[in-house]
């Protein structure tokens, strides 16, 4: 029988604190909204929080072995769901991301993140292949890229970004050296560096010197150089193949003033909201940017802007501190777990939190592109909240059973 007093209550309380701040901020964000429906977003979020806590309580009781054993099965179900949603999902704003069950919209892509963590954790935990083995890298890559491709098809660029990050995190945690990781992601760096020939040339010199100093092996080295060259050359073509709005989004991320009415609008408004909050904030329900509808998506993707405006630097710092603490504890737990599967699950899941924190907050601050990734615990949305609490349950459970192999 589970001994509740031995659960990591510090971690649970920080998650709860974040969730409650979320409800409060959603309420504030839509307090002055025109529609009755929007005004009651926070009530629905409260109900979702209750559901999430129930899910948490259930998951915490389940042995992690259950997910270990069923990891591939869950992964298969998830793939099926991702395929299905493309055909039968309800379409909103041009994207088929949700299954609608009456008032409840379920986004399988959210759950896909977790099932990928399970599948990868299981794969890395039991494979006999060496950390840098090409088969190991290729198989795990395949596991990741299939759901990612399906999600890109929806299309949901933001969520699909999470998948390679989980993979990279687990590659690292399962023993792949930093050098290998760098070489693996180097073509991406190349892709960015190639936007200007000088940057690319400098980057290439750096890449070659690292290869020369560390000598990772002939094949690895050569393929790294080739892929880097290829991606560098392909960049301009890739850029030209992007849709106008995608280009605009990337450009307006670099310079929001470029398109103040469209893609840059949200970034500008969000920066104004957060910046005008100052150190102390304008006070709860007092955010003029928020209240006067200048801030779009303020209860979902841009909820952090409301926090920045109304609670100021202090409020934002409290939120970031809670996340830091939560992540810190999660990493500690991942390092302590004796079960490799549990350790990988905790680390992989934590990477989801970290990425979403970075991208979402960074986006509201105007230092990251607008991708539509939710802020865990805080952004409005049932699936996201339930997923976050499920991860908390998994971490807490791993911690509780840390000594089990």
């Amino acid at each position, binding site marked *: 029988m589970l001994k509740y007093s031995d659960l990591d209550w510090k971690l649970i309380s920080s998650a709860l604190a974040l969730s409650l701040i979320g409800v409060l901020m959603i309420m504030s964000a839509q307090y002055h909204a025109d529609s009755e429906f929007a005004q009651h977003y926070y009530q629905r979020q409260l109900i979702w929080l209750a559901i999430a806590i129930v899910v948490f309580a259930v998951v915490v009781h389940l042995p992690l072995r259950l997910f270990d054993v069923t990891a591939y099965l869950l992964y298969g179900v998830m793939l099926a769901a991702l395929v299905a949603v493309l055909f039968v999902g309800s379409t909103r704003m041009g994207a088929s991301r949700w299954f609608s069950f009456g008032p409840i919209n379920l986004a399988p892509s959210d759950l896909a993140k977790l099932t990928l963590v399970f599948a990868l954790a299981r794969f890395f935990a039991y494979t006999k292949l060496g950390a840098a083995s090409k088969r190991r890298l290729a198989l795990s890559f395949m596991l990741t890229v299939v759901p990612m491709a399906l999600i890109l098809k929806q299309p949901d660029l933001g969520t699909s970004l999470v998948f390679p990050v989980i993979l990279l995190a687990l590659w690292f945690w399962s023993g792949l050296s930093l050098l290998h990781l760098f070489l693996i992601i180097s073509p991406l760096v190349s892709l960015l560096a190639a936007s200007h020939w000088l940057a690319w040339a400098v980057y290439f010199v750096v890449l070659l010197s690292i290869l020369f100093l560390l000598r990772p092996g002939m094949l690895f080295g050569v393929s790294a150089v080739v892929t880097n060259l290829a991606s560098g050359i392909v960049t301009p073509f890739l850029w030209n193949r992007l849709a106008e709005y995608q280009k605009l989004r990337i450009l307006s991320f670099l310079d929001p003033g470029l398109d103040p009415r469209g893609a840059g609008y949200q970034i500008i*408004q969000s920066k104004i909201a957060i*910046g005008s909050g100052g150190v102390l904030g304008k006070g709860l329900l007092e955010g*003029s*940017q928020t209240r006067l509808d200048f801030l779009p998506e303020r209860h979902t993707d841009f909820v952090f802007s409301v926090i920045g405006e109304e609670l100021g630097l202090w409020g934002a710092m409290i939120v*970031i501190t809670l996340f830091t603490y939560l992540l810190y504890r999660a990493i*500690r737990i991942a*390092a302590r777990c004796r079960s490799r599967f549990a350790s990988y699950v905790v*680390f992989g899941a934590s990477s989801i939190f970290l990425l979403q*924190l970075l991208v979402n907050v960074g986006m509201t601050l105007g230092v990251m592109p607008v991708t539509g990734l939710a802020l865990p615990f805080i952004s409005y949305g049932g699936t996201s909240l339930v997923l976050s609490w499920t991860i908390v349950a998994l971490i807490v459970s791993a911690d509780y059973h840390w000594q089990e192999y």
Partner: protein
Amino acid sequence: MNKLILTTTQKEKVALALIAAVIIFLVAGLVKLQIVDHPQLAAQSENNRIRVVPITPRRGVVYDRENRRLIDNRPSYTVSVVLAEMVPDETLANVAELLGLDTLEIRRRIRKNLVNRYQPTPVKRDAAFEIIAVLEEQSFRFPGVTYQIEQVRRYPENMSSETFTGYVGEVSSEDLGRHSYPELRLGSMIGKKGLERYYDSHLRGQEGTACIEVTATGQILGQYEDRLEVSAVPGADLILTIDLDLQQACSDVLDTFCCGTIVAADPRTGEILAMTSYPSYDANIFSSVIPDSVWQDISSDSSHPLLNRPLKGLYPPGSTVKFVTVGAALEEGLVTASSTLQPCLGGYKFGNRVFHCWRPDGHGWLNAVHSIEQSCNIYMYQLGLKLGVDLLSRYYGHCGFGRATGIDLPGEEVGLNPNSTYYDQRFGPNKWTRALVMNNSIGQGEVLVTVLQLVQFVNGIINDGVVYRPHIVKNIVDANGEETTIAPEVSFRLPFTPSTLDVLCEGLRLVVEGEHGTARSLQTDQYTVGGKTGTAQNPHGENHSWFVGVAPLENPEIVVCALVENAGHGSEVAVPVVGEIIKSYMQKRLDTTDLAAASIGDKD
């Protein structure tokens, strides 16, 4: 390679370091926005939610000299689009259909007037009530479309008065760039022509501002209390020197001809009593956005309705300026009032060319006065040759030709007063003959004048040589009711002594009353009239017909000048036109004197 594989503790440290890096990155971003950029962003946040709305003041009303309304304002509906609230593909298509415009046109108008996304951008001024009714009833079909009630200028119709009224229009971005109008913004209305432009700063008043709180979708939450509203100051009213009845008479009488212009002025003050140009257009069309087709019609019309003939029309003055020639000769002592020169036999041989008189069988012996009365060319040729090009030109200049009259309206043309320098430039030094002066002496050749200059000149002749600056505004009444009267202002004096002026006035009288006068048809028992006919040869077609008339002769109150384009002899066309105007003026004057006399009689 093995040294590269990290222990769990090392991996933990790397992971924590990565988390720390992310957190530091985010906190740095927060500090930058919330501490470093805070003042600037806080100000922006204010500007965002407080919409500063301009309050357009009432534009000043314009009255005629008897306080009858000439230009006033009427309420109208302006359909505007708020970009921030527009639904792409839907709004524009629907509003285009409603307004009967195509979407490109609407986009063009939005671009032209856009101040910012949150402010209504006018796309159709003076929309019909039916359109507003549809907007109100089916507002769901027109997201982002609003309307305002605006004041629109109303100009007199069928009076061809836009020669002086001009019109107002939306200020263009070029206007804003050229002049410093801190008080203007795109979409504001400013005077574009005529007195609307000349007196724009008086008429416009001062725009006020209201601060309202708005949402991003433009929903108005109400007045913003923290900032005071600055109320608008209505524009000043103008009282013109124009007499509405006379203006109407001028407009009516011209109606039967193709093209022409009439100017009537009071010689004692320089006040313009009527000023009209025909054909004309309706200034009201500029009150709303002019459809391109209408504009095309007007601007491509071969009769040039857009030409402001009294101010900008340049014509050879013909015989009307024989006063200058005779006056100059008298002043220079070349002739006396009774001097006779070689008799007019219908032609005058100069060099190997014969210059003709308008009367083929000639006028015979004439003195100075009778040369004016009968408008004899031969007499003038001889005077012109005695004077020479430059002396004649100097007299033309002193009589106000070749320079602006300084009327309080924009865009006046100065005409052309040729002298030897001009001819040297045009034909080359010494490559022109003295015969050119003969043409100039009868108002032909290169001399070009405006009707206004001629009126001013005749004003001077009958006003003892004193020329008042022509003006059209009598009083400016500002918003506080304070009145500024525009006093008559002496512009210059004619270069003639009283005795010369007497001769010229006598000539003026004989043109109507003389035995051989060219305008004898104007003789009447009720009042005395003087004048001078003119027939200006027009290289492009039929002669222009001139007449400038004065009444009553013994104490002149009105000078009327008519020019009818391509109409033939002055005595046949322009004379009866001016006669009508003078009749109308004198009739009204007699009526009012009768009335005054009657009321005095009542008192007794």
